[in-house]
């Protein structure tokens, strides 16, 4: 399993504000404008690298431990991925599926 960015996303990093603005297609036809904090942005960037889920988990843990402990990092990763999936910014992809 790995996570990939949903199609037609446009990322506009705003490093001065520790955030990234994302333009995403909306369900109703119009675009959605979203602001991700640094933590959500990190997840999106890690997923953009196209890692498998296990590698993603390791890369994320290296990035956030410390200041988080390992248990908090695992919980935070699951919550973050669920949030990005719910917002339509990520897609789950099985390994047997072709690379985009």
């Amino acid at each position, binding site marked *: 399993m790995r996570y990939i960015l949903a199609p*037609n*996303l*446009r990322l*506009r*990093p705003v*490093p001065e504000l*520790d955030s990234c*603005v994302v*333009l*995403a*297609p*909306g*369900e*109703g*036809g*119009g*675009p*959605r*404008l*979203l*602001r*991700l*904090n*640094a*933590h*959500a*942005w*990190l*997840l999106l*960037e*890690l997923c*953009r*690298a196209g890692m498998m889920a296990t590698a993603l988990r390791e890369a994320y843990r*290296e*990035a*956030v431990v*410390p*200041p*988080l402990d390992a248990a908090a*990092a695992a919980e*935070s990763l699951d*919550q*973050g991925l669920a*949030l*990005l999936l*719910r*917002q339509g*910014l990520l897609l789950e992809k099985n390994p047997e599926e072709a690379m985009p």
Partner: protein
Amino acid sequence: MKAENDLERLKARMRAGAALAAPEVREIRPEIRSAGLWHITDTAAAGGPAGPAGQDIAKGIEEGFLLGMMVREVRFRVAPEKADAFHAWLRRHEPDLRTLAAREGVLYRGTYGAFGRLGSYVTLWGYSSFEAIQKFSIAVARLDTPLGERLREMQDYVDLRDPAHYEEQLLLPAAAGRSLSPAGDPAPAPGKRAPRRTGRG
């Protein structure tokens, strides 16, 4: 900034404490300012009309029963002593307005007088996309475009002395669903901003 650089900087920010804040996604609501200024940028880039709802709306516009992907309703007053001249101006220039606005992706949907309310009018504009709003705003703001010139002529008839007589609102086809009323959000009171949605929880 390249993605790799972004990633390294983000990791540094995480180590510096940003990881303590939970991942968060907030929706940015377009903010419509008074006096017809639109605070919306870089939107068509996200693909424009897409998905089944967007296709249905585009079809509805093509078939003529929907006024636009977004409809801007402008209510205004014309002093009774200027009414005849205003009507004559419309008869002469509405075809121009339709043609010139269409070049910016905007459908001029007519100007209507409110029956029984002397001096009260409504103009309807149908926008095909957010990009059309931007293009239209730019064309209107420029003094040297035929469209800007026509709209300034039209504005000369509008009585702006009392702000209560001038009102704009943006209407979206209800079938657009989420873009009109995101799930879980209560509708904002008139004149109030919609509550922010965090996407958390």
